[in-house]
């Protein structure tokens, strides 16, 4: 068991050493952009493959500690030892993956400094100090992980210290994420550049805090959680399928469920982070923005949309399959067809491009490049409306799932004082924010968006819609307090769907034509409207069913094999989607290493076709899963060794004194 972690420490040290040596070489290199090949092979594709593999492992290694610590905290709070075992299982997966991440990171750094010395010389000139901080943080992460994992048994009775180590591990991980994101985003949106000379004249902080840094930080943080949850779910699924022991199957069924729950919870927020990132790309450069949504990458974007929609649908599918193990959940089965219909119709709109591939005959028949009615599905307001509908439906699925085995709601008046306080406090905060943003929109000066004063009227509808949302939050809470929580939830759901999807969704077309910069605020209004419904309805739901009578224990382990293949498919789907997203984000720079500052003059500066990208991303996915299965197999070897030793210890008689 100790082998992977010790190896990881050695590998991390070696990787950082190599990177620092390479950085030193680059510091002395010639400043002009020069290129080398990777043993005669295209350097761009070589770096692409290694970088993607490194990022996939890094996403897992940074995502898993977050929910491992949260799971451990839940275990301490509830006193349920199963959570502690689960948190330990999650952490065990890290041990082997961490070494692979470090090895790939070292290889990536070495390749970058060798194959792109000109670019790396430029980046070292800007980011030199951050490289050393990064190396120190890597050491900090290695040692905290080492301590967190190996002190598990020893600190069983000093859990606060153990959890503190886990928190430190996450702090180091998030800091590493932030620093490496600053390098990637700087290449897209450089700051601190003298526009006349193109030279860097800013500070390190200016370079780090470039326009796309925070949007990417948030997007990757959430993405790592999704990814970590899904890969952990895959591990659980494989173990479930390979096991005949009912107790083991029950444990891994539960682990898979928790992994999927974490992934879906973060996935619900991810489209908004993506929207923010996309808007900031557009704000930084209309050229990159156009490339992304309507130009060279527009079709890649459609493929990415299929990836996101597929994750939501598969996540729901897994939940519905899980309802079979819940006594009483059959009451909610009739809802499945309605939720599925909403998801499928929304998905159909979500993946419809504005600009379809057409034959000449079709163009003639339609009189142009766009289908006269279908074209509206391809525009941003339609996409915003349906993604909100899909998220709302997924949340509804979750509520049905958690209600599955409870007989009836407990009257809210019987809940304790603190339950009422929490409900009131959460709702008041949510309503206050809705009122704040709604009133801000109503009183906003259009000139701040470079719009004429006559455009002020377009701000009013979203503003009043948010005030209405705040009112419905109030009504839902009021009904809950008079023991009518369920109708309150239904009302809030209905208003949110109407407001977010239909009213503001359709109004988006008007805003797009008449006051396009406002579309960003309209999307925010839709999002906070949806989020308010999720937060308030989830809070009400928790207290409606607290201490409710159960219809029977959950039959963990009684899941069809199909459900486990869905879990595996989910993580494969996520890997492919992440690959496409990374290709788009990085590819938007086109023939620039650092957008607008340092041009890529190599023979590989062209934008790859979607077919080529699909082959590379597919290859990366295959290699990644092969490596993951080897890493998990290694961690299993250690676990078996531990179990055998423990069993031998129990069986052997005590030593004579």
């Amino acid at each position, binding site marked *: 068991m100790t082998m992977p972690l010790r190896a990881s420490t050695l590998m991390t040290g070696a990787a950082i050493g190599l990177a620092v040596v390479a950085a030193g070489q680059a510091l002395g290199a010639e400043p002009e952009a020069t290129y080398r090949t990777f043993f005669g092979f295209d350097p761009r594709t070589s770096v692409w493959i290694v970088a993607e593999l490194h990022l996939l492992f890094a996403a897992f290694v940074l995502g898993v500690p977050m929910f491992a610590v949260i799971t451990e905290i839940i275990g301490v709070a509830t006193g349920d030892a199963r959570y502690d075992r689960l948190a330990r299982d999650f952490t065990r997966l890290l041990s082997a993956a961490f070494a692979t991440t470090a090895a790939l990171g070292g290889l990536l750094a070495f390749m970058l400094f060798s194959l792109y010395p000109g670019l790396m010389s430029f980046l070292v000139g800007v980011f030199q100090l951050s490289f050393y901080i990064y190396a120190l943080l890597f050491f900090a992460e290695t040692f905290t992980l080492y301590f967190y994992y190996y002190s598990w048994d020893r600190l069983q009775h000093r859990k606060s210290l153990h959890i503190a180590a886990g928190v430190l591990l996450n702090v180091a991980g998030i800091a590493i994420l932030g620093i490496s994101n600053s390098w990637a985003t700087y290449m897209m949106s450089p700051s601190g550049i003298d526009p006349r000379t193109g030279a860097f004249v800013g500070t390190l902080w200016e370079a780090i805090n470039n*326009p796309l840094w925070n949007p990417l930080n948030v997007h990757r943080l959430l993405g790592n959680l999704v990814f970590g949850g899904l890969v952990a779910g895959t591990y659980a699924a494989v173990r479930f399928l390979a096991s005949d022991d009912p107790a083991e199957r029950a444990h891994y069924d539960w682990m898979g469920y928790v992994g999927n729950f974490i992934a879906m919870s973060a996935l619900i927020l991810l489209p908004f982070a993506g929207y923010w990132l996309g*808007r900031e790309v557009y*704000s930084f450069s*209309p*050229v990159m923005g*156009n*490339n992304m949504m*309507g*130009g*060279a990458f*527009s079709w890649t974007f459609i493929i990415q949309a299929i990836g996101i929609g597929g994750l939501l*649908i598969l996540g729901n599918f897994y939940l*519905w399959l899980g309802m*079979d193990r819940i006594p009483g959940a*059959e009451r909610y*089965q009739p809802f*499945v067809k309605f939720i*599925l219909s909403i*998801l*499928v119709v929304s*998905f*159909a709109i979500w*993946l*419809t491009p504005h*600009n*379809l*591939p*057409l*034959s*000449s*005959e*079709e*163009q*003639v*028949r*339609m*009189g*142009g490049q*766009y*289908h*006269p*009615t*279908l*074209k*509206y599905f*391809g*525009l941003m307001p339609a996409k915003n409306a349906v993604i909100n509908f899909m998220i709302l439906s997924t949340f509804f699925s979750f509520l049905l799932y958690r209600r599955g085995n409870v007989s009836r709601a407990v009257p809210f008046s019987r809940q304790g004082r603190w339950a009422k306080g929490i409900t009131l406090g959460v709702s008041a905060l949510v309503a206050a924010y809705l009122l704040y943003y709604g009133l801000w929109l109503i009183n906003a000066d259009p000139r701040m*968006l*470079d719009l004429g004063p006559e455009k002020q009227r377009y701000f009013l509808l979203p503003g009043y819609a948010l005030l209405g949302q705040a009112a419905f939050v109030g009504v839902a809470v009021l009904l809950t307090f008079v023991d009518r929580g369920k109708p309150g939830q239904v009302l809030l759901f209905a208003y949110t769907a109407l407001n977010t999807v239909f009213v503001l969704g359709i109004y988006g*077309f008007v805003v*797009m034509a*008449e*006051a*396009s*910069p406002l579309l*960003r605020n309209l999307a925010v209004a839709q999002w906070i409207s949806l989020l308010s419904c999720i937060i308030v309805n989830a809070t009400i739901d928790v207290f409606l069913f607290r201490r409710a009578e159960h219809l029977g224990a959950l039959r963990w382990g009684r899941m*069809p094999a*199909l459900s486990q293949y869905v879990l595996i498919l989910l993580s494969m789907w996520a890997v492919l989607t992440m690959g496409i997203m990374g290709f788009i984000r990085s590819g938007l720079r*086109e023939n620039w290493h650092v957008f*607008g500052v340092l041009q890529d003059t190599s023979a590989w500066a062209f934008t790859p076709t979607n077919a080529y990208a699909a082959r590379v991303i597919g290859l990366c996915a295959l290699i990644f899963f092969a490596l993951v299965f080897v890493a998990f197999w290694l961690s299993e070897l250690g676990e078996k060794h531990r179990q055998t030793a423990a069993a031998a210890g129990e069986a052997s008689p005590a030593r004579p004194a």
Partner: protein
Amino acid sequence: MRDRLQLNLFWRAALFYVVVFYGGLVWLFPRVSQWAVEAPEPLPLPAAALSMYWWLLLTGLFIYVSSSEARRQAFLHPLYRWFGVRGTRRRQALRWGVLVALPAAVGGMFYWDGLPRLSSPAGIRSQHPTMPKAFAKLANPLRHLSAEQVRAYQATLVARGAADVPPEAARERLVAQLVGEGAGLYAINCRPCHGMQANGAGPMARGFRLKPADFRDPGLLPTVVESYAFWRVSKGGPGLPAASTPWDSAMPIWELDLGEEERWKVLLGEYFLSGVGPREPEKLP
């Protein structure tokens, strides 16, 4: 009676597929589209869209029938009954017939789909080709008039013998004049293809296989910044970068015939006639 009329899940799923795909997407949608845009004939879904929706519908049906043990059993029950029971000789023959016909039909469908035939291949067209970076920072000098431009216009008015005009009134007059000039230039140069309503239906439009751009389409002008439209007007179809191909555009290179200020004016006229505004470059927070 009701039980006898109720179909089992297998046949309900099959019926649902037929109704939604053939009834809804193939028959109803084209007619609704025809009614919505008052087209002379039904507007069928393009093959690419129909194919995506077909896969999605099948996936949705698969998810539905397999998402619970009860539904899985209900869906498979007729198949078990059909294939699992030995039955009469006639039934066995029928069973073999289905087992042969079904894969043959699916195989035939894909074979037929892949056969070479006399039709043009479907092509993907990039909606907004990449704008050269040199154009990205440009702004229409006539859209947000400076105080200096207004003062110069006031001086022109005075030189022409007009009474002293206050700055705001002068600004309004200058804007109206520029838009008028732009609309005039548009009428001379753009109207034949794009039409005076700016809806892509000019007198020459019918001569093109690909209809000229409809500037009233909310997915077109409002989605691009004005410098993008300026680039398209200036360079036309032939001036597009190689990465944008395949690209069908008969747009002339207007920078050969119109000066820079005239092209900006044309845009003022174009936006005015189409009733939409340009996408404002967003500011970073």
